[in-house]
């Protein structure tokens, strides 16, 4: 069952490449921040799942809410003349690193445990 999300990612990329859609370059910023937000949510969801505190409502609502919040922040920034999207980039970037670090440690611990079990 683990391969299904990966398959989804691949199908999504193929779909995007095949449809040959292009957004105007002035909106590329918004899309990049939306991608970042989506990634953050996905990684956060994986971490929560590994820590057994996963909640599907939080995950799905967080996915859409984060995307909308991030893009509207970028939009506001454009209109205020302040690069507010940097705030979103910073926040998501930091969270992304932290979450990945947590995932790495959990996986590492699990791996070490399983190796010890095998030795015994």
């Amino acid at each position, binding site marked *: *069952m*683990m391969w*299904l*999300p*990966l*398959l*989804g*990612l*691949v*199908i*999504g*990329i*193929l*779909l*995007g*490449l095949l449809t*040959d*859609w*292009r*957004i105007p*370059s002035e909106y*590329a910023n918004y*899309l*990049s921040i*939306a*991608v970042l937000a*989506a*990634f953050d*949510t*996905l990684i956060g*969801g*994986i971490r929560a*799942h590994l820590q057994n505190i*996963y909640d*599907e409502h939080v*995950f*799905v609502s967080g*996915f859409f809410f984060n995307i909308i919040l991030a893009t509207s922040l970028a939009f506001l920034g454009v209109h205020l003349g302040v690069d507010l999207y940097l705030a979103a980039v910073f926040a998501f970037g930091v969270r992304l690193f932290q979450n990945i670090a947590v995932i790495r440690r959990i996986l590492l611990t699990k791996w070490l445990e399983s190796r010890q079990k095998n030795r015994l």
Partner: protein
Amino acid sequence: MLTRKTTWHFTFVSLIIGFMLAIQFQTSHEPDVRDTRDIWEIRQDLKKEQELHKQLLQEIRKYEETLEKYEQQRSENKGAILRQTVEELKKEAGLTEVVGEGVVLYVEQMYDESYVGPVSDTVSAELLRRLMNELNMYGAQYVSIADQRIVNTTVIRDINGVTKVDSYPLRSFPFEIKVIAADAEKMYNRLKASTIADDFALENLLLTISEPQQRVVIPPYDGTVRVKQMEAVEDARR
């Protein structure tokens, strides 16, 4: 482990992420073509482009000339149309002679041989206005009374006991009333059927209606049309 529902959520989210990624990738990675031409090739290309430029300029000049020609033609046409409109308006206002199919009415005095008493030497304005209304009702297009063209501003009134059409007094009998109508036959029949002749008879006048005639000539209005109450419409585009 992962429940079925959770897996689908993750799949859905990753699908969207993949889609967005692909679009972002396509948007930001426009293939940039490197320029690998050497100076001679560039010069040749430049020459080609300059020739194209020249050609385009020539075409532009050609089209501009055509455009100018069209503009000229159009302004000439405009003049012609304006003249035509003026003619039409003049015709409508009664400033031109009109020839057409119609009927002629004769008005003459009618007294018995044995009649003794005052003799009226004019026709009352009231009666004439009534006749005009009847004629208009029956589809008269152009009317003249004693060769005085009736236009929109014509007045028929009694001045010191003499009926005047505009400023022309109706004193001599008989006089003619010429009428042009689209359908002279119909006009004739309707006049025959109306009681207007009886009304004339009451004033001791005999109204004779001619058979429909092929050619009735109605003279133009000879006065000047004075425009007092009309104003030119402001150009709305300004």
